[in-house]
C-alpha cells in the first residue's frame, strides 16, 4: 500500500517540477490523440450522416461491418499499419514507421468506426417530427441537413469525446507503430506500460493521473458546451 501512496506523491512532484520525460510523453499523447480525433471526426461525420440519414441498398451490411470494426483490437490495427508503413510495406518509402504521424494514422483507423457508428445512430434516432417540422417551415434539403446536424450536435460531440477517450487510452498502436521512443514517440500509455514493467510505479501513476485529468477536462468541456 505504501508504494501506491509514495507513487502518488512522486507523481505530483514529477508533474510540478516539469520533468522533461514525463511532459514530452504528455505532449506527444495530446498531439497524436487530437490529430487522430479530428481526422476521424472529419471522415466519420459525413459517413455516419449518410449511413443514418439515407436508405440505400447494402446499408445493413455496412452497419454490420462497422459494428465489427468497433471491436477491432488495437494490436491488430497496429500490426496492419506496421505492415503497410514498414520498410518492406507498400507505404514504406514515406518513412512513417516510429513517428507520431504513423501513430495518428493507426489511431484514426481505430476512432473512425466509433465516430461513424455513433453519428449514424444519432442521426437515425432523430425525432421523425423534426424533418416534418422543417419541411413545414419551408426548409429546403440543404437547410434540413444543416439543421438536423445542429439538432444532434450533442450526440456528435459525444461521438468525438468517445473517440478521443479511445485513442487517448490505447496502447497497442502506439507501442507497435510508434516504438515507444523516449522524447520522440513515447506516449502516456506506452510510458506507463514501460515504467510498470521496470517497477517504477511512481512514474506510471504520474502519467496515469495526467490521463485521468485530460479525460476529466474533456468531459467537463462537453458538459459546459451542453449548458450553453
Amino acid at each position: 500500500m505504501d508504494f501506491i501512496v509514495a507513487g502518488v506523491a512522486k507523481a505530483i512532484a514529477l508533474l510540478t517540477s516539469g520533468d522533461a520525460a514525463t511532459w514530452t510523453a504528455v505532449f506527444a499523447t495530446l498531439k497524436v490523440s487530437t490529430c487522430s480525433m479530428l481526422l476521424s471526426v472529419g471522415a466519420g461525420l459525413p459517413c455516419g450522416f449518410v449511413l443514418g440519414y439515407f436508405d440505400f441498398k447494402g446499408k445493413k451490411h455496412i452497419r454490420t461491418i462497422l459494428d465489427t470494426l468497433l471491436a477491432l483490437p488495437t494490436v491488430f490495427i497496429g500490426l496492419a499499419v506496421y505492415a503497410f508503413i514498414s520498410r518492406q510495406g507498400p507505404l514504406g518509402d514515406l518513412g512513417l514507421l516510429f513517428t507520431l504521424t504513423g501513430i495518428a494514422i493507426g489511431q484514426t483507423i481505430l476512432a473512425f468506426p466509433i465516430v461513424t457508428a455513433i453519428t449514424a445512430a444519432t442521426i437515425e434516432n432523430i425525432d421523425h417530427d423534426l424533418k416534418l417540422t422543417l419541411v413545414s417551415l419551408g426548409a429546403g434539403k440543404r437547410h434540413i441537413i444543416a439543421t438536423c446536424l445542429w439538432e444532434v450536435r450533442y450526440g456528435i460531440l459525444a461521438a468525438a469525446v468517445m473517440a478521443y477517450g479511445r485513442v487517448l487510452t490505447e496502447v497497442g498502436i502506439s507501442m507497435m507503430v510508434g516504438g515507444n521512443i523516449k522524447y520522440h514517440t513515447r506516449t502516456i500509455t506506452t510510458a506507463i506500460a514501460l515504467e510498470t514493467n521496470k517497477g517504477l510505479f511512481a512514474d506510471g501513476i504520474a502519467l496515469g493521473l495526467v490521463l485521468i485529468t485530460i479525460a476529466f477536462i474533456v468531459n467537463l468541456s462537453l458538459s459546459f458546451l451542453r449548458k450553453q
Partner: protein
Amino acid sequence: MTTKEPAYHLNDIRHYYGDTKVLEIDTLKIEESSITGLIGPNGSGKTTLLKLLAFAVKPTRGIILYKGRPEVPFSPAIRSKVTLLTQKPYLLKRTVFENVAYGLKIRKDKNRLEERVKNALLTVGLDFQKFAPRKWHELSGGEAQRVAMAARLILKPEVLLLDEPIASVDTESAGLIRDASLKARENWGATLVIASHDLQWLYSISDRQLSIFNGNIFSTGMENIITGPFEQGDDKIVVKKLDDGQIITLTAPEKKTGIAVIRKKSISIDLEKQADQSFLNQLSGQIASMLLEKKTGHIMATIYIHDLSFVLRLTPGQISSLDLYPGKKVILKFQSTDVEWI
C-alpha cells in the same frame, strides 16, 4: 367569366403504408380562405391527409392541385406557402426567439425580425420579454404548442394545417390558438384545415367539417359509422345485434366489407316508435350532447343507442318542437336500405 380555383383540389388520391391503404379520396376541394374541420377517430387518416396537403409526403397515386397547379413535395413554389403544425410540435433545441424566427431566417428575411417575433408571440398570448430568451425545454406543453403556432403564423402562410392543435393544452391556450387561427384568415386570408377530437372547439372555429373514417372522406361532415360483426339475415339482409336487445337491420353489402355508413340526412328523430313499421329500424336512445354549428345555426346532436354513437344535424325548429335536450330519450328511425358500405 373565370371561376376562382380552390386552394386544394385532390383527385383520385390513394395512399399506402406498405400494403395497407390508408387514404382513398376520389375528389376533394378545399376553398381558399375557408376553415375546414377534420373529424375522425385515431388512425382514420387525418394526419396522413394533412401531410399530403402540406406536400410533406407524395401520395402513392393521384394528383393534388394547389390553386389549380399540380404540386409535389419540396417544390420551391409551395414550400413557403403551406405550413403544418404537427400534433406533437417539435421545437428546435434553441431559444423561443430562434424557434419563432427560424422560418424567416431560412428565407433570408431578417427585416424587423424582433418586432415580427414579438407580434407572433403576442398573437398566441406569450409575452416577448418573458418567453423570447427561454430555452425549448423551459416551456410547458401548452406554451410549446403556442410557440410552434407562432413559428408558423410569423410566416403568414397561405395555408395553415393544424393537427390536433389543442390536444394537450389548457382551455386558455385552446382559446388563444382558436383566436390566432381566426386572425390568420381575417388578416391575410389564410386557408385553414384543422384536425381535432374536440368537436365543440372545432365547430366553433370551422365553416365546414369533413369526417374521415378508414381513409374515406365524408364531405358532409360527421356521419354515422357502424362497424361489424354483422350477422347474415334472410334475403340479402344483415343484422347487428346490440347488447341491450335492439337490432339494426341493413341491406347486405355486395362485397364482403364490414363497415356501414348511415348518412345523417337518412335518419329522422322522434319521441315515440311508429306502430306501422314503415321504418325497419326504430332505435331507442338518449341525447348525449348538442353542439351549435355556428355558421348555419344548426344543432349537431349526438345520440347514444346503447354503445353506438349517432350524429344528427337538426334545425332549431326540430329542437323546439320536440323539446330536445341532452339526456332526453328519443327514437332514431332509418330504412335498412339507407346504408352505404365502405
